[in-house]
């Protein structure tokens, strides 16, 4: 029998990348931009984080490289959608296709090499508390960071002036522009924040979840993160719930596979994707709920004429 503690620990590591990517995309979407390139930025974060750590031996450099890779890719998206006002959906798809190819190429020589793993926190006595010690006080830094990030985003979006501006830009870019806010600049910054989070989420995969590089190792997590934002109806705290729910489904599939109840392993592997669809149906069928919270300008192009 597998200990409950071990299961919870793996659930946390499986949920963290989803949480990181989704919280970033939430801010992007709150500013009225739909970036479908999350999967791509994530996979670039994963490969760059791994390579940086592999050469430097430093996990901090790896994390920084992952973030930078995400930001760089998001800037590409920003340049196209904001400066050249291209279709956001097509551009996001293009970003994902490009990044999946690029990461495969760049990472080819590093496939399967052993990597370093982010160390877990250890506080004497506290971490040694049975059952809950390791869960609360024995995680790696990014787990804590991801949790802080959720409440930080919640606070900034709904309690500060910056958040008000972001939401104004997302709900009515024409009004925000008329009030004198630089819509394009706000959106660029939000896109970069989303890129940083997605890159970090990818880095978490290759530096903590499975410390190695495998091609396409994000396996749809970026898309699930996008679904999470809808599922959470653009509310940061609900992202936390959603990410851990999906992480649990992901891990349960693996454990049941391990126990082997005669259920085809493929069905269990497909479970996270099926659950995503079901979750989207449950949330989206309530039209009022989605309409109320969807940023009104989501996915729309904006050109400052005057």
């Amino acid at each position: 029998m597998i200990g409950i503690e071990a299961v919870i620990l793996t659930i946390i590591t499986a949920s963290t990348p989803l949480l990181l990517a989704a919280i970033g995309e939430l801010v992007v979407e709150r500013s009225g931009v739909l970036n479908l390139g999350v999967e791509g930025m994530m996979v670039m974060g994963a490969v760059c984080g791994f390579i940086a750590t592999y050469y430097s031996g430093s996990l901090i450099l790896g994390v920084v490289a992952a973030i930078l890779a995400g930001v760089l890719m998001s800037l590409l998206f920003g340049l196209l959608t904001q400066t050249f006002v291209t279709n956001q959906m097509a551009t996001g798809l293009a970003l994902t296709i490009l990044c999946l190819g690029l990461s495969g190429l760049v990472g080819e020589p590093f496939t399967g090499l052993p990597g370093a793993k982010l160390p877990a926190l250890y506080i004497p006595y506290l971490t040694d508390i049975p059952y809950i010690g390791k869960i609360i006080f024995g995680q790696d830094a990014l787990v804590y960071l991801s949790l802080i990030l959720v409440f930080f985003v919640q606070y900034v979006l709904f309690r500060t002036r910056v958040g008000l501006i972001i939401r104004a830009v997302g709900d009515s870019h024409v009004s925000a522009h008329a009030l004198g806010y630089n819509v394009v600049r706000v959106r660029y910054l939000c896109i970069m924040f989303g890129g940083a989070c997605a890159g970090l989420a990818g880095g978490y995969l290759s530096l903590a979840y499975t410390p190695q590089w495998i091609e396409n190792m994000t396996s749809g997590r970026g898309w699930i993160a996008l679904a999470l934002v809808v599922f959470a109806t653009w509310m940061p705290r609900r992202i936390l719930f959603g990410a851990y729910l999906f992480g649990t489904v992901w891990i349960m599939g693996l454990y049941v596979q391990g126990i082997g109840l005669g259920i085809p392993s493929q069905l269990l592997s497909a479970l996270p994707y099926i659950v995503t669809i079901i979750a989207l149906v449950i949330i989206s069928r309530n039209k009022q709920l989605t309409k109320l919270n969807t940023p009104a300008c989501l996915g729309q192009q904006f050109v400052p004429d005057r």
Partner: protein
Amino acid sequence: MKITLEKRAMASNFMTYASPIIAIGLTVVIGGIIFLLAGYNPLNALYYYFVDPVMSLWSIEEVVVKATPLVLIGAGLAICFSANIWNIGAEGQLTMGALAGAFIPVMFTDWQSPIGLVLMLLMGVGGGAAWAAIAAFLKNRFNVNEILTSLMLVYVAQYILDWFVRGPWRDPKGFNFPKSVDFEGWQLLPTYGDGRMHIGAIIAVIVVVILAIMMSRSMKGFEIKAIGNSRRAGAFAGFSYKSMTWFCFLLSGALAGLAGIIEVAGPAGHLQPTISPGYGFTAIIVAFLGRLNPIGVLMAGVLLAISYLGGDGAQMELGVSAKTAQVFQGMLLFLILACDTLIRYKIKFSVSQKSTEGALV
């Protein structure tokens, strides 16, 4: 430096056709620079990518074989995207089409008849359309974002295929390899030339012609463009967005399914866990490069097929990773989208005195 966009009074017709050519040109130039930096002779490398694949009869046939699924799927997606409906799960629809079509040769191993082959193709069409119908249904009934559902269904489809070829449909004489029985005789598409080229290419061309006529000469084509340009305007004209969603998903799903069964009954000859090197996703590039126009898709499909083959060729001749082809493809889509801005806007570069103010960042 400051970049400003100045709206054109009318969309530039010239740029609509010039944009993909500029994008291809830029891709080649950037690709050449990358090769140069990586220490290869850029002209030599580009030759293997884009010219060598059309220099021999064998490879031209191979280009046709690879272009067939790209054109079939790309044409369907072009219709979808024209209507501003986003089916990006063609890869999954391709998989389900292949699986549905393979039902006949796997279940009736000894049945040799042209009717069987036609049935296979029809079941492929049905399988793809049925898989696409899920996303369309959820979109219409529950208002679920079709981008996310169609994409999630890709993963689900691939696991279903995996289960079939490792489980119930595994070839009993296949030495435990995850593959179905080999198709034979009338379970395969008739071939021409050196043996790889099959009638799938002809089917693809017929589909393109029908869709081109539909788009330019029929009421349906007008309806698609009207809804794509403005859903509201379409509604005033009495065009239903919901039925358009059904139409686009079923059509593009059917074509992706057809591409899937053609791939299995053509080059592959049996089911295996992976039946496509991402044709369903590359077809998105094909659709945009082809200007969302079926005839354009035909040309774009051939070009991307060349890049697939060029990637393999460059790997063999120069030792460049075949994955560069995918990077080229992604870069191409990016550049097309950027160049398409030129259709609606003029871009003005100006060096402003106060560089901190007014820059578009």
